[in-house]
Structures are given as structure tokens and as C-alpha cells.
């Protein structure tokens, strides 16, 4: 399969694929939103005073809790110990909160039973007399300002960068880049919604920004190569479709090298990491993959008509200039 075929003949396939993913993503987002990590969680909170820590009984207390969870067949996602502070003085109250976080679908009955089991394990021993155990259900709230301000920031940042690309490489490449950026941001968000990938509250807007910056950088690689190649007389005789396809041969390796290096980075940072970081780094492969797909297949296909129109204009200008010169000579 030659590059010209991949870019132009299959462009209907790329456009259809992108449209399908984006539309399906929008529909799913409208129905279910993103799958926010920790948007709904359940917790068991154990508050204990310094009498427990001073007597070296914290581990025992944790043991009671974890045994109770095991006995009731539930497992927690995370465990944190936080120091309690007085709101007026912001100094320690001498109390600590041991907090176990569970997934939203953990059975309420099992949590309640575990709570009772912890209470009975604490017994009536004096050291545990002031220990309080409670279970809670938490539902996250969304801050909308972050999203719309972020969207404006990304849009303005991309537009100014594309104006620079327009000045350096031509309006056609900037317009194709603009469509590529819009596509990449939308495609990334659509994939997040479609694949139900757990995301943190800030992840969608950050990933949209990542998709756009990757898209800009990778499309620029194509632009640089195209400008270099199109100066070659061999390209003059080629149609827009053929010229873009030929140039593609010299640029796709650089795009793939950059993508491969970034991929290795994300995989390595995610592989040796805590669960939260792993989720973020592995998910960051989505904007990268989207930008690679777009800069190799989608945006070059979009650029072909822009180049064709530019070539036609150049041809007309040349012909007009020739006519004028001929008339002047006559």
C-alpha cells in the first residue's frame, strides 16, 4: 500500500472513523459524562487520639479494621492517615483519622457490617474508648470554571501557534493544522468518554491540551518536511495528492520516533508508579496516539485540497504574470 493511497484514497475511512468516534463520544458524554475517578466513593473513617499512638496501638487498630474488611469480603482502594487540626488555630488537636476508601459499588451492608465488627473488636478497652468509627458515602462536585477557562486557554494558545505556522509555512498548512487540533482535542475527549477510562477532575482538559500540543508539534514536522521537499523540482510536476504522499515518506519516521520516545516515557512512568500515577500516565497515551493518528493520516488528507487550491492559485498567478509580460512585450 503506497502512502498516497493511505492518505488520499482512504481519507473517507479516516474521516468516517473520526466522525464516528467523536459523535459516539459526545452522545455518551451527554448521557453519562466522563468516568471520574473517585467521583463516588465510600469511606470508613476511624478517628483516634494520641493515647492510641503513644501506646503504640495504631498497627493493632489498623489490623482490626483490615481484618473486619477481609471478614466481610471487601477490599479498600486506598488508606491514608491524616492529622486533625483545629480550624481556629490550625494546630494539631492530637487526633488522627485513619481513612479507608472503597469503590462506589462496594456493598453498603458489607461496609456497615465491617463498621460493627471494628467497633466490637475495639471492645471496652480504655485505650480505644475515644475511638470513633463511621462510614460515609462521597459524591464529587464539578468545578465548571476550570473547564471553560481551560478550553479558552487551549483554543487561544493553539490559534496563536497556528498563526505562527501560517506565517512560516503557509495559510493552507495552518488551516489544516487548526482542523487537526480541533479533531485531536475532540477525539481524545471522545475516547475518554467512550472507553470509560477513569479520569481525575482535571484530566480531560489537561489531556485536551496534551492532544493539541502533540498535534501542533507533529503537524509541524510534516510542514517542515513538506516545505523542504516541495522546493525540489521533482515535486513541481506532482499533483497535490501525489506531492503530499511523497513528502509523507520522508516525515513519518520522525513523527514515529517522537511518538515512540514519548510512549516509552509514559509507559515507564506509569509502570513503576502508584496506582493513581499509573492511571494518569497510561491514559496520557490516548492524546499521544490521537495526535500521531491525526498527523499521519487525518491532517495530511485534510491538507490535500488546501494544497490543490494553493497550487491552482499559483498557476493562475503565473499565467497572468506571463500574459502581462507577453502583452508588455507586444
Amino acid at each position: 500500500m503506497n502512502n498516497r493511497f493511505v492518505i488520499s484514497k482512504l481519507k473517507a475511512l479516516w474521516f468516517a472513523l473520526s466522525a464516528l468516534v467523536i459523535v459516539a463520544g459526545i452522545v455518551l458524554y451527554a448521557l453519562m459524562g466522563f468516568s471520574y475517578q473517585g467521583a463516588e466513593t465510600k469511606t470508613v473513617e476511624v478517628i483516634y487520639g494520641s493515647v492510641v499512638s503513644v501506646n503504640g496501638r495504631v498497627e493493632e487498630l489498623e489490623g482490626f479494621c483490615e481484618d473486619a474488611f477481609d471478614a466481610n469480603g471487601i477490599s479498600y482502594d486506598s488508606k491514608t492517615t491524616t492529622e486533625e487540626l483545629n480550624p481556629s488555630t490550625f494546630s494539631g488537636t492530637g487526633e488522627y483519622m485513619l481513612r479507608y476508601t472503597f469503590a462506589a459499588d462496594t456493598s453498603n451492608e458489607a461496609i456497615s457490617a465491617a463498621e460493627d465488627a471494628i467497633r466490637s473488636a475495639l471492645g471496652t478497652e480504655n485505650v480505644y474508648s475515644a475511638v470513633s468509627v463511621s462510614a460515609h458515602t462521597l459524591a464529587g462536585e464539578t468545578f465548571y470554571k476550570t473547564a471553560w477557562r481551560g478550553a479558552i486557554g487551549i483554543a487561544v494558545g493553539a490559534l496563536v501557534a497556528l498563526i505562527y505556522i501560517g506565517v512560516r509555512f503557509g495559510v493552507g498548512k495552518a488551516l489544516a493544522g487548526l482542523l487537526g487540533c480541533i479533531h485531536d482535542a475532540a477525539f481524545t475527549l471522545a475516547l475518554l468518554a467512550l472507553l470509560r477510562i477513569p479520569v481525575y477532575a482535571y484530566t480531560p482538559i489537561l489531556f485536551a491540551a496534551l492532544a493539541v500540543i502533540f498535534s501542533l508539534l507533529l503537524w509541524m514536522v510534516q510542514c517542515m518536511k513538506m516545505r523542504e521537499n516541495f522546493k525540489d523540482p521533482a515535486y513541481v510536476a506532482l499533483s497535490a495528492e501525489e506531492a503530499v504522499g511523497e513528502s509523507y515518506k520522508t516525515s513519518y519516521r520522525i513523527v514515529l520516533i517522537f511518538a515512540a520516545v514519548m510512549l516509552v516515557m509514559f509507559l515507564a512512568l506509569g509502570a513503576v508508579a502508584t496506582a493513581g500515577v499509573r492511571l494518569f500516565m497510561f491514559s496520557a497515551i490516548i492524546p499521544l496516539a490521537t495526535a500521531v493518528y491525526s498527523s499521519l493520516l487525518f491532517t495530511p488528507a485534510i491538507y490535500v485540497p488546501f494544497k490543490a487550491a494553493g497550487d491552482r492559485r499559483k498557476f493562475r498567478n503565473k499565467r497572468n504574470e506571463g500574459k502581462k509580460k507577453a502583452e508588455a512585450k507586444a
Partner: protein
Amino acid sequence: MSKTKSAIILTFVTLIIAVLCVVCFASFPAGGINYYNSLLSLSDKDADLGDYLIGDTAYVGGGYAVVYYPEGVISSREYEEMTADLTGDDLEEYQNRYLSYADGALYLEKEIVCEDGSDAVSAAFVADFDRMKDMLRSRFESLDQAGMSMQIVDDYTVRVFLPATMEASAAAFTFFSYMGEFTISFGSDESSATVALPSPTGTARPASYYIRGASAASQSGTHYVQVEFTDEGQALIADLTADTTGTMIFRVGENDVLSLTISEQINQNTLYISGSYTAETAAIVASLIDSAVNAGEAEDVSLTLGDISSVPALMGENALMLLYIVLGVLMLLSLIFFFVRYHRLGFVHLYSFLTYLTLSVVCIWAAPGITVSLGAIVAFVIGAVMLSIGDLVSFEYARKEFANGKTMTYSVKTGYKKCMWHIFDAHIVAIVFGLLTYAIGIAELCVFGAALGLCATLSGVCTLLINRFYWSIMMPFAKSAAAFCNFKKVAEEDDDE
């Protein structure tokens, strides 16, 4: 450049890089209870990441969380403590006053929360709670803090988390718990001050009739709150302060927010209030006044603050350390690649990379808007990859020129000249995008944008200027420039084949 000159400069550069590396990355005990902490460990960490300083002297990162209880709602712990102290009829009366909710996680005071004569939560309470929740959200949202979050706990309490990078967390938690109508009282002293705005007599008008809003601003390092009056508000305040001096108190509900001593007539449409405000506290007070003016009502449910929890890094205790280790290993692998492919020219990349690395850390430590976060780490990685690819491209261009039979000096010069615009274009686009998302975006995107702008700038400077400078000072030590760089002429390459 002569060999001696190169040796002097190279020694000097090596010393600077070594010192920067120690300052940036080495933490060690400095005798007794004193410790030296590296710039990296002292850099602000966002809510997701955090680590103890050496000697566990302090924790950098994480944040603070608090639970707000609306009037009529108490925690199970408070209920248990109260019932433990009561006996007999008092206990029974207390128990009858409250309704257990969410499997005993909360206790609701029937008289306030429930429908008359039933155990069902009243629609009026639910509506009041929703209004209070929206007001809290708008107030906290106005702070634009990266890592901030808000959760509804057991349907009727609100948990808010603020990152430790926000120094005025306690003030935010306390001020934002003030609910109710905004009023301005005026009198000869605090005790005799009476409500002057909204006017207690005549047509009842809300505070927004007199006040447009409040915002925070700063000038020459002084932070202040500015309250903008409507024409009616300006006239009312001018009348109030025309002939008398006294005390003007800004209140939200029953809580004093500001107390001003008035010594002359105030007749202006904007009141500028400065004091000991920081940027954060001015923003908190302005946000509180603004939301109370525009949405506060006398019937708003009042809030009680629970204890504040000091929360460690949300991504886990070892998250940051693991990220540092992996980044270190990846950098090492990139250096090995350069040494294998370019032999001693790898030192040029090593020095460029160390310059980028240390300057990034110094800037992250010094820049107020940048914290060590996942977004900032991704931005740093993008900058590092751009630097490595930039170095690779410039080396390859020079190699190509050399292979075509040019001299080494000419190859380097021409190689750089040919690839300069490619590298410049890539970096300038990343810088522009980063800085604009920093300027317009908020929270995590703002941190990412700032870090991207910074790292792309440093990467560009290192690969376009510093890399070439290092090459020019290292080259004179090589007996054979070609062997130094592992470059070969085309004929030699053909021979090898």
C-alpha cells in the same frame, strides 16, 4: 578556541553544573538538628504529590480538607459524645430530637431538617442545602487553586479539599463558612453600629441594589479588596459618612468580615480596602463579599466547620519518589544512546541535559505559579524529549555534512544553520502554546502551561545555544575531531561496509 581557553571554560562550566546539581538534588544533614534541603525537595508540590523534607522536618505537598455541617446536621461522633454525657430523661429527649441518617453517619435535628411530624427530610431543607452548596462551590471555584476538590458527604454535608500550596487555607475554610445576607453597619463604635445597608427602612432592596460586586486587586505589591457601589450605594454611603466619624462593619450573616474606621466622608463608587492582605486573603474576602452581595439571603442555612484534616499526597506516599527514579533511569538511557552513537560527543549532550535539568529545577523552585505536579512532570518530559531530539537532529545534520567531505568546523556550522529553524519553530510553538494556556487557563492547566512554556524555553536555549557552545569548548581536546564525534566520511563508511 585554543585548548587552554577551552580547558578553563570547561572547568568553570563543570564546576557550575556540579554545584547546581548539588543545590538542586542533594539533601543532607548539616550538623545537629540542621538539614540542607535540595531545591527540588523544597519546591512546591501539588495536592497529588508530596514528600517529607530530610529529617521529616516538614511535609511539602498534599493539602487540607474540612467538612461543613449545615445547621441541624451533626456528625455521628458529636452525637455519640453528647449522648455519652447524658442520662435519663435528658438522654431520651436528646435522642428524640435527632434522626439517624445514612446508617448512622449523620444525625439530623428533626425540628430543623424534617417535615413536621415525620422523619422525612423536608424539601425546604434540601433546597437550602443546595443553595448553600452552590454558594460554597462558587466561592471556592473563584480561588482557582490546582488540586482543589469538593464532595458531598452523606447527602447533607460538604467536604472541601484545598492544596497545601494555598497558604491561606484556614482563612478560606473559615470565611467561606459565613452564610447569610450581606450587610453594612455603621455607628460611632462597633457596639452601637446599626445596619445601614441594605436599608432597614422603606422599600426592602437587596444588597446588590447598592453594591455591584467585590474583587481583589494588587498594585505595587499591596493587595486590596475593592468594593464597587452602584449610584444608589454611593449616595447612601456618602450620606451615612457625611457628618460623622465612626466604624463601618461589613457582615455576612452574623459574622464580621471587615471593620473600617471612618474619619472622613466616603463619596466614591469604589471603595479600596487594604490592610495586611496577601493575594490569597484579599481574594478570599472579595469572593465572600461578592457572593454574599449577589446571592446571600437572610434565611441562608448557617454552617459549622468540622476539624480540618491534614491530607498527605493524594497519589500515594511514594508516588513522587517513584517518578524521580523512573525519570532518572530514562535520562540515563537517553545518555547511553548518545554515548553509543556519538562517542565523546555524548558529553556535549550530557552537559546540555544537565543544564536543562538544573535550570528547570531552579525555575520550578523559584517561580510562584509552578508546582511539582503530574502536569508539570509531563511538561518537563516534553521539554526533555524536545531537547534530546533537537540535539540529535543537530548532530545528525553535522554528521551528514561531514560525511559529504566538509571539514568538522564547517560541518558543525552548516549543520546547525540547516536545522536551526526546524528546532526554533518547534520550540516557539510549544512556548507560545504553554504561555497562553498559562495566562488564560486556571488550576492544573495553568500549572501545565507555565511548566511547558518554561521547559520549552530552556530546552530551546539549551539545544540551540548551549549545546553548540559546549561542542565548541569540548572539541579542542580531541586528537581527532571525527573520532571524538564518531563521524565518518562517506568513503570511510563505504570502506566499513
